[in-house]
């Protein structure tokens, strides 16, 4: 919540600054970008709602990146996290980031977060983050996705995410190793750039309990089918 308030203050300051600037040197102004995706699917007969929001506020070189994701089933939030990262543009296409991640559900836990994010060759949006939990346990997350255009407005996003615990994490109740793998194909139709309904196909496997050596489907089926909406501001 702090980060949102700070972001609002920054946005206000940037508006005032932009209004007073008259020279040609106002070439590093503060801009912002936000995207929210919400979708609904049915898993084992009950509704599952997911959200995935991200954005940034800042100049071309220094930005506050934020993200939140989570899911809710049958009125209960099953998983939720928020993250705020400071990002610095250190070379073309790339930011180095450092900040904080807070898991809210299923296990409330804070993490120091750091890594790189940017646009990899072949148009892959790529992020590699390392985390140190408040208990000192290290983990890694790799994310990548890319767009494939069926038409100018009908667009497939292929994406994947991998969470990997480098040591056993008692607080999470999980042994070291890959904790979760996710692949998705999201097909959106951009009625406008900022308003796009989508169909989501998501394949998820995650480790459920200590000692379990394998990644398991979270439900009877590995595959979830959802419909959702992307909003950009």
């Amino acid at each position: 919540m702090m980060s949102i308030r700070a972001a609002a203050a920054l946005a206000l300051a940037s508006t005032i600054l932009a209004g007073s600037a008259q020279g040609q040197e106002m070439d590093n102004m503060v801009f912002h970008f936000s995207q929210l995706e919400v979708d609904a699917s049915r898993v084992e007969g009950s509704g599952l709602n997911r959200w995935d929001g991200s954005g940034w506020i800042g100049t071309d070189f220094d930005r506050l990146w934020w993200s939140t994701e989570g899911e809710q089933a049958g009125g209960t939030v099953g998983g939720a996290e928020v993250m705020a990262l400071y990002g610095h543009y250190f070379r073309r296409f790339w930011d180095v980031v450092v900040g904080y991640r807070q898991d809210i559900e299923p296990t409330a836990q804070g993490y120091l977060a750091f890594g790189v994010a940017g646009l990899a060759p072949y148009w892959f949006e790529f992020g590699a983050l390392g985390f140190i939990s408040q208990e000192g346990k290290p983990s890694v997350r790799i994310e990548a996705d890319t767009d494939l255009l069926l038409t100018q407005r009908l667009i497939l996003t292929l994406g994947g995410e991998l969470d990997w615990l480098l040591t056993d994490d008692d607080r999470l109740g999980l042994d070291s190793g890959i904790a979760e793998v996710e692949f998705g194909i999201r097909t959106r139709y951009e009625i406008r750039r900022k308003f796009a309904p989508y169909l989501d196909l998501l394949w998820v496997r995650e480790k459920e309990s200590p000692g379990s050596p394998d990644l398991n489907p979270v439900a009877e089926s590995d595959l979830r089918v959802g419909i959702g909406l992307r909003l950009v501001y």
Partner: protein
Amino acid sequence: MKNHHSLPRRDFVRIASGVSLGAGLGLRPAELFASIAGPDSGDRPATEVHLSIDRRGFTVDDRHTDAPTIGGSIPGPLLRLREGQDAIIHVTNNLDEVSSIHWHGLLLPFDQDGVPGFSFEGIPPGETFTYRFPVRQAGSYWYHSHSGTQEQEGMYAPLIIDPAGEDPVRYDRDYSIVLSDWTDEDPMGMLRNLKGNGAYYNYAKRTLPQFIGGLLDNAGETIRDRTMWGEMRMDPTDIADVTGATYTYLLNGTSPAANWTGLFTPGERVRLRFVNAAAMSFFDVKIPGLRMTVVQADGQDVEPVRVDEFRIGVAETYDVVVEPVAGEVYTIFAQSMDRSGFARGTLAETEGAEGEIPAMDPRPVRTMADMPGMEDHSGHDMADMPGDHDMAGMEMEMDHAAMGHSEDTMSLRRLRYEDLQALEPNRDVREPTRDVEIQLTGDMERYFWTLNGKKLSESDPISLTVGERVRLLMTNGTMMEHPMHLHGVFMELQNGAHPAFAPRKHTVIVPPNQTVEAHLTYEDPGPWAFHCHLLFHMMTGMFARFEVAPAIAADESTQP
């Protein structure tokens, strides 16, 4: 009328305080005075004009804005001056924001150039600024706001300076043809859209079905091509950052549907003075059925060149003469370079006539040759000069060689930079003694643009001296054409013509992956602006400061 080049003390103090506020003028007060106290013009005749900047409603087809305007119209009023006279122009800013007027392409003292942060602090709301300068040149120019996004919103207008002597161009009638790109979107919102997604306005990207089609056609070539572009993270369809997805292209403030019309009488030689006052759009201009004779480029007379089509970059001007015949109706057709739309107007004998509107040409796609570092285009090679290069990416075939042999040929003769040759020899033909190398740089994904990898706010000024002969080498390391505009001097474009007849340009298109060379000699000291004239490139940092010291100061510095 005495001494009207020197500012009153009060105005000087205002400029000086601007310096202390961080404008970084870099000139000592004595030098400032030296630069603005020109010779007394005595009782030279003057043209005195009053202009006001007002926010006015403006409607294009079914879209409406309240936009800052010059004189209440878009474009603003035609300003007509005469060479050898003084111009006294009172500009009253009735907006609730700071504004400015820049006289694009005019040679004048730097403090009359109208660039906030360089020439002055801008015109505050409710105040009047009086520009005074001797008119030292003739030709077709334009004037526009140099503050924020006001130019995109509608603050631009044509400016014509009639020559003191006889005009080398013979014509019976003339029209200013101001091309522009208009939208009801808030320009800052547009820039924000581009920051979030550099391809926000591009609805002509390559698709998966095209890729599959390519694989079936020639798998090896298609994979190699896609791999190259993917590796570079560049998009061959990125021809224009902002497109007809939001723009309506205007001709003299009139949409294609509303059809601006210029009347002619058969037998007349009609001079059309084209200005590209667009914020972000290049145009390819043709008048089917009429050969155009190009007689001026950027306000400077050139050896007449007969063409069927010319490309006009943002901020460039071209004057052409046409000879329409009885019984014909002609369409002036200016298609945006990315073919996402067009501006059109009509030349006819009567109001209300309408000519055929041609289909748009195929959309150009960038090729590997445009990719920085892919091939050695290290400039100076005449085969690779800009006009020619533009053809490389074009899908339409135009045979230059065939032209001139036969009037009947179907091929279009398209103006190239190499065709331009100054009508009068340049005054200074010395070999340059000083090289200034500028890399055009940027990041399309993050959407910011730079010179030598730096934004204006991060960069050091480039120091020159009045009278110094300079070779300006502009190397484009990006995937886009950049119309580079240098204030306070003409760039003599080294296009293969004899240097004495190198065309003088205030704005030069530098194509991707090429080096363009221009020679120049400043006659006026001052801080002068050098920038890409694509508005959002300029606003995000593609801008540099040329500090031109008076020649006297340079002499003093060599004799401590």
